[in-house]
């Protein structure tokens, strides 16, 4: 029997605000434990949370970018549960009136474009961090760091529209690209600022009701998501094939052992007893505020992709890479202001520049060559001042030397010789030295011209303009 996979994803993305959602403590990652807290985020009695305005704006940005309906009137709710990393005994979240609903994210699949529905996006606070596994933790205790407690999150809940781990990957990639374009989150899965849980079920093809689902947690990288989903799908299909049932359960992915294990003690069904948060007044997005958020939206990835295709006439492959991030796209466009062979810019960005970023583990923002300098380098090739191979040496030199392109060419002595009389002198010397080859050419073995060009280049220490060498040789041989 054939089985169909049904996946819904819940993503929590940490917002790039300076301060927490309900107090002025810093959201900085990686600080010393318990140094970024105050009575509000510690859940002391009698304190009042006050909403960070920017969190609302960030939520609206993402909602608009994912085609959601924005709920102009929305409010917060209490989600009650006890856990040591949640000092208040409840999480302030949104329940019945989330800020964004009914959107979608468009992904590329093998069968073309597909829309993955978004049920909702809502604002909430993060919990603290529990430390169990470090060597300094005693065997009967857990240590709690409340720095992360109160850091603003958006929870993004997809519809069960995803049909394969591959689609899940495409969806997450797209969502992460969006939050980065919108500059609302750094989308860093490894550091925990972009977290993903999955609801997974399988059913025989053709069946319309959903199978029993399991929830999969603790997938800390894109690679883990793919592996964990593959694992769980296989497990469920094997159960059904053997006539067994899938048990509704929450599973934790163990990346060391490559397996998912049921979570202990969470079996009792959740009862969060949500109720409207009495400590916060409702949020109302009036027209001027809403419009100002909307008009400040940047150009989004799909639009940028289409524009790059038409404006710069680049292949789709190049365009997809160049528009992957706003910074890379901006770098390209800055360069394109100074140099108009766009395909050549793209070739260099996808080649030498990308290689350098990889090797030095830096981002385009930290790349030592400004777009202007890259453009001058490409101009130097285009106007035959240097050859392409010489340009690669100049490029390397520029990476670690704060000099202009002209200075670098001068310094390295790589200036191309395009002076016809000098090239002619080299050509004549080669023609008189290699009489056998000249003879062969005249007898119809025209391929030897490559050898002769090589000899001229060697003689000129690689600096002669190869096109001029080749045409001059041909002219003389056929004279």
């Amino acid at each position, binding site marked *: 029997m054939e089985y169909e996979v049904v996946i819904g994803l819940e993503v929590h993305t940490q917002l790039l605000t300076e301060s927490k959602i309900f107090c*002025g403590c810093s959201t900085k990652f990686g600080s010393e434990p318990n140094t970024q807290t105050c009575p509000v985020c510690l859940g002391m009695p009698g304190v009042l949370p006050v*909403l960070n*305005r*920017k969190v609302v704006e960030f939520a609206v940005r993402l909602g608009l970018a994912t085609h959601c309906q924005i709920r102009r009137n929305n409010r917060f709710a209490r989600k009650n549960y006890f856990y040591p990393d949640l000092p208040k005994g409840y999480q302030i979240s949104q329940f019945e009136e989330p800020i964004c609903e009914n959107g979608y994210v468009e992904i590329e699949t093998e069968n073309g474009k597909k829309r993955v529905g978004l049920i909702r996006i809502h604002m909430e606070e993060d919990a603290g961090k529990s430390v169990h596994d470090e060597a300094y933790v005693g065997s009967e205790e857990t240590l709690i760091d409340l720095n992360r407690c109160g850091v603003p999150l958006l929870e993004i809940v997809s519809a069960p529209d995803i049909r394969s781990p591959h689609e899940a990957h495409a969806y997450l990639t797209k969502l992460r690209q969006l939050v980065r374009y919108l500059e609302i989150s750094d989308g860093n899965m490894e550091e925990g600022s972009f977290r993903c849980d999955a609801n997974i079920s399988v059913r025989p093809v053709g069946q319309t009701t959903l199978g029993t689902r399991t929830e999969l947690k603790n997938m800390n990288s894109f690679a883990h998501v793919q592996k964990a989903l593959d694992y769980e799908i296989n497990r469920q299909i094997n159960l059904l094939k053997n006539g067994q049932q899938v048990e509704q359960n929450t599973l934790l992915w163990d990346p060391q052992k490559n397996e998912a294990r049921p979570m*202990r003690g969470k079996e009792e069904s959740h009862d969060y007893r949500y109720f409207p948060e009495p400590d916060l007044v409702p*949020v109302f997005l009036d027209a001027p505020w809403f419009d100002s958020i909307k008009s400040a939206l940047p150009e989004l990835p799909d639009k940028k992709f289409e524009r790059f295709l038409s404006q710069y006439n680049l292949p789709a492959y190049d365009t997809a890479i160049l528009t992957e991030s706003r910074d890379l796209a901006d770098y390209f466009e800055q360069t394109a202001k100074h140099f108009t062979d766009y395909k050549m810019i793209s070739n260099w960005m996808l080649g030498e520049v990308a290689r350098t970023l990889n090797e030095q583990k830096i981002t385009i923002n930290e790349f030592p060559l400004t777009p202007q300098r890259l453009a001058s380098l490409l101009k130097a090739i285009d106007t035959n001042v240097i050859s392409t191979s010489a340009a690669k040496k100049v490029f390397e030199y520029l990476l670690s030397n704060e000099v202009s392109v002209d200075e670098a060419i001068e310094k390295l002595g790589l200036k191309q010789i395009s002076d016809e009389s000098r090239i002619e002198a080299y050509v004549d010397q080669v023609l008189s030295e290699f009489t056998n080859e000249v003879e062969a050419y005249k007898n119809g073995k025209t391929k030897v011209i490559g050898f002769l060009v090589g000899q001229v280049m060697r003689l000129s220490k690689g600096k002669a303009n190869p096109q001029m060498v080749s045409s001059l040789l041909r002219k003389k041989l056929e004279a």
Partner: protein
Amino acid sequence: MSVSVKDVEYIAGLAKLRLKEEELPKLTEQLNKILNYVEHLNELDTTEVEPLAHPLEMKNVFRPDELKTSLSREKALANAPQRTDEYFTVPKVVRR
């Protein structure tokens, strides 16, 4: 509306309260009395009344995204029944 002993046990569980067997009938009775009292509110006809979002008729109380000084770690940890130099300590919550 009335709750059973079972409901009370369930609610106690959610609130992490450990109740003695002999307390259950008494607490069930008390809880039912409270609920019956609150039940009087349902005698009012509220079909034409908008649900109240908040007792204060206010909206949009915000703070700008600005940093304020946090507590020192010593102060933050001062009330903790158990702690290390850097962390709150609680009984183990997951099995290693």
